């Protein structure tokens, strides 16, 4: 996708920006990790994660990066490897789309139709993502965090 | 939509306060019944209280 070369202008960048170099490489262990993940999510974060389709069917690289930065900012104590693999939530673009995902590693947002499987181990979050009780689902290698609209977290382990 | 067949606990703070009072009353009643009268009558007006010294826990044996 080509980078827009006009319109960048003199914008004061007030968005969050986390330096990846400063992130701890150790992170948290076992019980402490789970305890941290169970902490309520900030409402700004929940808000941002439910609006993955704010950019329409195709999101700009900048928008995707911003979302990824937000994830990093929400969990400053965690090591890079411990951050979620991706976010899955209900898609409001309408038929035929059902869910969409934010893949952290690939830095893309994809929308999926019914019957279309999510790749990279994120399919397991589909069912919960479709449930009205949850705002979005954080996908990790061996578990999922289901987050409500008020930020409360439930953990489902494999 | 939540279908609430029964109200959660009590509908008003007044009702709760009333029940609290009722309970307090019952507690006081039982207190009267289980107090040793002769002992109670023998005490002077003032209370013998523990000192306000900070309490250290008995050494926790591993």
């Amino acid at each position, binding site marked *: 996708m080509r980078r827009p070369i006009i319109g960048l202008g003199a914008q004061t960048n007030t968005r969050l920006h986390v330096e990846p170099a400063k992130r701890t490489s150790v992170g948290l262990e076992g019980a402490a990790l789970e305890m941290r993940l169970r902490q309520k999510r900030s409402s700004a974060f929940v808000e941002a994660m439910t609006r993955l389709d704010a950019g329409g069917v195709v999101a700009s690289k900048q928008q995707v990066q911003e979302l990824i930065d937000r994830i990093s900012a929400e969990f400053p104590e965690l090591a890079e490897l411990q951050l979620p693999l991706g976010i899955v939530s209900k898609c409001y673009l309408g038929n035929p789309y059902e869910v969409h995902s934010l893949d952290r590693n690939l830095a893309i947002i994809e929308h999926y139709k019914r019957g279309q499987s999510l790749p990279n181990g994120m399919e397991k979050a589909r069912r919960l993502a479709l449930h009205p009780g949850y705002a979005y689902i954080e996908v990790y290698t061996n578990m999922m965090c289901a987050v409500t609209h008020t930020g409360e977290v439930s953990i489902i382990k494999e | 939509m939540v279908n609430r067949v029964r109200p959660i606990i009590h509908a008003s703070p007044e009702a709760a306060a009333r029940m609290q009072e009722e309970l307090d009353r019952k507690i006081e009643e039982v207190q009267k019944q289980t107090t040793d009268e002769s002992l109670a009558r023998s005490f002077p007006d003032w209370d013998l209280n523990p000192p306000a010294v900070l309490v250290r*826990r008995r050494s926790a044996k591993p």
Partner: protein
Amino acid sequence: MADQVVSRADLSGINSSLRSLDHSLNTISNNLNVVAQQVAAVSMQVSSVEQQVEMTKNDLDRLAAEFREFVRQDALHKNLQLAETRLVKIRQELENKFGHYEEVRRRAIGILQAVDTSLVRKETIGLASEEQLLAAPRYWLAPCLVALSAWLNDNRELAERAVMEALRRDDEKTSLFFALVTRRGGRFRASSAWLERYLGQQDPNELKREIVVLVDAFANGIFGLEARKRCGMLIRSWLEELSQKPGFVEAQREQWKNALRAKAAALDPTKFPHLREYSPTWPQLQQALEGAHLHDIIYQYFNFILTQDVVPTKDLAAAVDQLLDVLVREFDAEELPLRREERINELIIQQNGDRQAAEQLFANERVVEERLDFTQLLTNFAMYPAESKASVATQKLAVALSKDWILEAHRDLTAENRNAVPLDIEITVDEWKGVSRDGGNEAELVEQLDRHLQEKKKEALKRNRPGFMNWLSLAAGLGFLWFGLETRFLLVVSAICLIVFVYGQIKSATNKKKIVREFAELFENHKQILLAVLSDIVDYRREYEAADANSVLIGELLEPVTPDQYVYSTHDSARTVI
């Protein structure tokens, strides 16, 4: 052959030799008899000796046994005597070193048991002096007694000084003593303060069994209204401390998950009969729905606990009073070694010197100091009140203290349940398979069913067609007809063949009608089943959704509950921000 003359003299010589030989043989024979007799005699003597040896052995055994018994009895006797002597010595030593302790105990019991004021006063006279403290210099109960009697004699200065001394000797026991005494005497502000002091010294990792009685007591207001609130908060700080241990919170959550899951009830077996019969997905559907129904069950359970009336009873006060009696009669740590010696020697005497039996009894008597896991206690109080004999107030306290773990466990269970609901529901009618999500794709499925049955009908019709044999019989009939023009007999055969052919054709035709009719019926029948299953699916989804929605109730119910306000919460304070 020469004639030989045998001289007689030679024969007689031989004769006499033979005779003497014979004589010798007789002698030998007689001797042998004698020997035989003697052998027999010896043999008899030998068995006689054997018998005697046997008898001697028995005697020896018996003698040995008697001897051992004698030794045993002697030992027992010695043990007995030793124990008697020792006991006397020990009791003397106890009297010398700890005689005053018994005196202190006696007077304490006297004050506590006195049923009228004059008796109380009588006991306290002579106690309100510092000399008492010197008589039992290390016993914690002595200064407590001085303090108590000073208090009863309105001597504030002495009372407070004695309290300080008592606390110096044993803070824990002193605190418990005054908590219990002031309660008995109706001084509830004081008893609340003392109880807090006592509880504050407890290690939540290792609680003594008395804790159960004390918790039940203060939760029911036995120690006063203040105590109920403040001790509840104190216990909550225990839990906060315990929560610092790694893995502790996780263990609580798991414990609560199991306890909550155990309350699930089986689904009504008459519900969703069509889904049950025609869907291979039914087991997952059933489990998911049962899990959703659990929300309401859990809500009703906790709601019941929180809205039940607390009825304080006298029994709890009696149990608390008993604690005081035990505390006062307890031997002090210093006396214990001697007291144990005393006891074991008493038992030896009782068992007539049998040391082993005495030691066994002694071991049985020692009350095992059982330390409790407080959090297991809490879960039991809240979820299994009948088994753990918890009063209503204690149940409420336990719920209030465990609130966070209950909510987390419930949230996890909810997510697990929602994750387990099948999105696609399989339908199997006979050989036909279909899939539906919410029962809304009726037209599509009916068409699929129709197509499937049409296929089957085609196959059936194909099979029904008159086969090779039928055409063969036609051919045979015609053939035989041709040849039968000459031979009559073949005409008959031909006729038979033709009849067989015609019969086959008719049968096939009627079967065809039958098949068509049957498939039409089958289609109707299966369609009805399909529609019924779809209707069940609609009902299922609706019921699940309604049951699932109840999960918020538990959060709303438990969020506002706190250990200092755990009896009645208000609806208003349960507002959630969405």
